């Protein structure tokens, strides 16, 4: 069953793989630059990221061997396992900077919330794929589908990890919308969300509240996050047209950000490569988006389409939120930049996601 059919190779989406490889390469170089010091070019952080990248590529290869249609049957299992892991976080999680987000297994720490994003997408796709039709979804199905996403989102919010929770919810909304949620329902849900805002506000940790307030009025916290955001803006801006060149960024060395190699890596990239480089990076992401679109529109079955769409939405919502946040146009919520940010779990999940898209693309004629 694992024999590689000649047709599979023939239908392999090489451009999509190329886009992935280029982005992974850009990510590694930027992490290298963001973590190097005068004494040591290669930091332990970079080495870890390199190992994670290799692991991610191998995992993607394994994903390619199996037919994605298997997930129809086993999607619920992924989902349950991810929920169990999320529930384990408050008890056995590692506490880093006031948040419990990591679990450690055999000495390797990872974030169950990243895994939960993918699991929720698989679950939603397998739940929705035989319920879609030419007509709009009935409200019970739509509500249940959204509930499937709300459960992990709440657990993630509690960690606290506002960014990932937001991504899970918006991806779920996008998928249910694609599956035929009435547009009025979307409008209604947005309106209904407003009265819930005060509740959500109280659920947030003080530092998250500060970040949001700070976005509305940066002068309020000139010594804390306001300072970081201002410095991130200066970093991006000082890149000008062509940037300062690789390893020649200066701003990040001021440690203006606690997370210059994770959530704010785009600031480092934009400082070193300038407007031109940032546009090339954006173009690369757009190319990836285009290939994803090709991959899923070629899929004939509803499951492949929904799954691929979910994964693509996840990647692009993160790209949008992360870049706008780094450029000071959105409040600071912790969302990684896919393929670029330091962090094994995020890298692994995004790469496996692209692996699934490749899988969908190459098995498009396998009915």
């Amino acid at each position, binding site marked *: *069953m694992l024999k590689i059919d000649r047709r599979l190779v023939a239908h392999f989406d090489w451009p999509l793989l190329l886009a992935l490889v280029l982005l992974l390469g850009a990510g590694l170089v930027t992490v290298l630059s963001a973590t190097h010091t005068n004494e040591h070019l290669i930091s332990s952080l970079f080495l870890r990221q390199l190992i994670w990248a290799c692991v991610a590529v191998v995992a993607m290869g394994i994903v390619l061997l199996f*037919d994605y*249609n298997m997930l*129809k*049957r086993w999607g619920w299992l992924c989902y349950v396992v991810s929920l169990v892991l999320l529930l384990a976080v408050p008890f056995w999680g590692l506490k880093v900077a006031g948040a419990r987000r990591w679990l450690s297994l055999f000495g390797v720490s990872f974030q169950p919330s990243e895994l939960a994003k993918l699991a929720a997408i698989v679950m939603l796709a397998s739940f929705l*794929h*035989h319920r*879609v*039709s*030419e*007509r709009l979804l009935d409200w019970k199905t739509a509500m249940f589908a959204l509930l499937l996403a709300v459960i992990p989102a709440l657990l993630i919010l509690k960690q606290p990890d506002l960014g990932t929770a937001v991504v899970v919810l918006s991806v779920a909304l996008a998928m249910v*919308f*694609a*599956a*035929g949620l009435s547009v009025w329902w979307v409008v209604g849900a947005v309106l209904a969300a407003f009265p819930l805002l005060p509740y959500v506000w109280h659920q947030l940790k003080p530092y998250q509240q500060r970040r949001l307030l700070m976005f509305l009025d940066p*002068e309020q916290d*000139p*010594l804390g996050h306001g*300072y970081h955001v*201002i*410095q991130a803006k*200066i*970093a*991006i*801006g*000082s*890149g*000008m*047209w062509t940037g300062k060149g690789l390893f020649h960024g*200066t701003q990040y060395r*001021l*440690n203006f950000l606690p997370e210059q190699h994770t959530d704010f890596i785009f600031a480092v990239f*934009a400082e070193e490569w*300038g*407007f031109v480089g*940032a*546009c090339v990076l*954006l173009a690369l992401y*757009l190319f990836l*988006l285009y290939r994803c679109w090709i991959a899923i*529109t070629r*899929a*004939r*079955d*509803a*499951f*492949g*389409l*929904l799954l691929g*769409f979910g994964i693509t*939405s996840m990647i*692009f919502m993160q790209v*949008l939120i992360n*870049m*706008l946040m780094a*450029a*000071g*146009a959105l409040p600071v919520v912790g969302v990684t930049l896919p393929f670029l940010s330091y962090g094994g779990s995020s890298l692994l999940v995004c790469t496996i996601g692209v692996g699934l898209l490749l899988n969908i693309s190459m098995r498009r004629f*396998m*009915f």
Partner: protein
Amino acid sequence: MAWASLKQREAPNLLRRRVGWSFMLFTLLFAPIVARLWYLQVLRGEEMRLLAENNRVRLHRVQATRGTVVDRYGRVVIDSRPSFDAVFVPEDAGDLSLTIENLASVLGVSSAELRHLVERRGTRPFQEVLVKRDLSFEEVAAIETHQWDLPGVSLQITPRRSYPHGPLLAHLTGYVGEVGPEELQRDSSYRMGDMVGKIGLERAWESFLRGTDGGQQVEVDSLGRRLKVLREVAEVPGHTVRLTIDLDLQQAAHRALGERDGSVVAIDARNGEILAMVSHPSFDPNWFARGIRPQEWRALVSDRSRPLMNRAIQGVYPPGSTFKFIVAAAALEEGVINPFTTVFCPGGLSFGNRYFRCWRKGGHGRVNVHEALVQSCDTFFYQVAQRLGVDVIAVYARKFGLGLPTGIALEHERSGTIPDTAWKQRRFRQPWYAGETLSVAIGQGYVTATPLQMANAIAMMATGRRFRPRFVLQVESPEGDVVQREDAEEIARLELRPTTLKQIRDALHDVVATERGTGKKARLRGVAVAGKTGTSQVVKLGKERSKTTRLPRHHRDHAWFVAYAPADDPEIAVAAIVEHADGGGGQVAAPLVRELLQEYFALKEEREKRSYAQN
């Protein structure tokens, strides 16, 4: 392929259409990113580049000044004074090793030491390294004049804690010291090198004294020199803590005790305010505030007289005969004696196969409870104790707060011991022996108490009420508004018959007022004092109580005196103990208390005169 046979469902057009819309939306959303980048990198790029390269914006913390501590009349007890620290940002140094050499010669420290400091600091670049605290005037001048040879070095004014009275109140105030790793973990608002309250008042009132640090966004030039302050959050100085202590009385108590080891506690009997609390020997908290040197620390902890111990709350001593007023109260209240019950004292009492001596070899003759207290007859209390039993004595002792923590807001207070049969069973797994009750009756044996407990107990005898002892009156903001008031907190009332109270109080009065009384040396002109002497044995001695002066010092008895005054309208209660004294309580401790009370009433009169003159 098995799962390929799963029914595939053709994607409906609705789904395809909506996915298409979504992708269009995603693509469009890239536009604001490009616009934002254009704005930052192209339109404002020059400006940002200038900000990034020529000038640097740094965060600079402005440490809050710690709150002052004043006595009840507003006189300074703890203060903060400005001091200069040398700080160094290695990134600004240019030639790092040259600058370190220069700095070392200016400050007179070894360059290896400085290099170690620079290497030891965290990984955060541009973080200031504290090179030397509290520079002398010469060092400040040297750094100022050699500024050009010392790029990256700057002076920073930080408030430093100062204890102008040194050892006088050290046990109460405690001291500050550099923040430790656990405190850093517990409270993220502390930074490495901060000074925090480590013990005593400084620790207990930390949250009020601390204040809130401010900060500045500072623009610096390429040499790290400050150009201007861009934004600023002002520091909020800590609150002022007003003590119940009267500094004059504290000094008087300190003088009265002199160089002898021991403790003196004076409280306001009407509300539990501590007016003076002396423990000798003491230490200088300034040592800790400036960073204690290892040899100083070793000297403090290895000193056999234990200067770090606050004897007022941690010294547990057998109360000796001062305990008798409690036994007498128990006996009268329980009805085992009446005021006319007499006991013949031939100079001791045979009990079992032991002879229990009275302190007066020749005996007191026939005495009732009044005379037994006035002359402190041991034999009378041996008799009474047998009738009461140890468990009843223990109940009464606890009514007076003995064997229980007083609840003073200081750490490591000790409760002393009030033994009873259950306690002995628990502690030694042995039954209580009747002979031991006799020792308890005269405040010996297992009975121990702290000076503060004894002051509290005699205050309760005086007023019938017992309060939680307090040493803070109120917390005030730097502007002088009262932030928090520490009100009197009554813990217990003495439920005794008025006749019992009167009997005991009369006797305590006569202890001082009569020529027979053991406490006559506490007598004061114009004010009636009531009190009780005590001479507590440190070691069990042979047949006879020897002249104390012939014994080695650490075998000599402790001298106690507890008192309140005025006897008819009690205001102040005092407990004093002199360890290993040259004489008994009446000889050594009573005159000491007299000196303190005299000062108290003199000060009171003076204050009344002054306020009369003002009005």
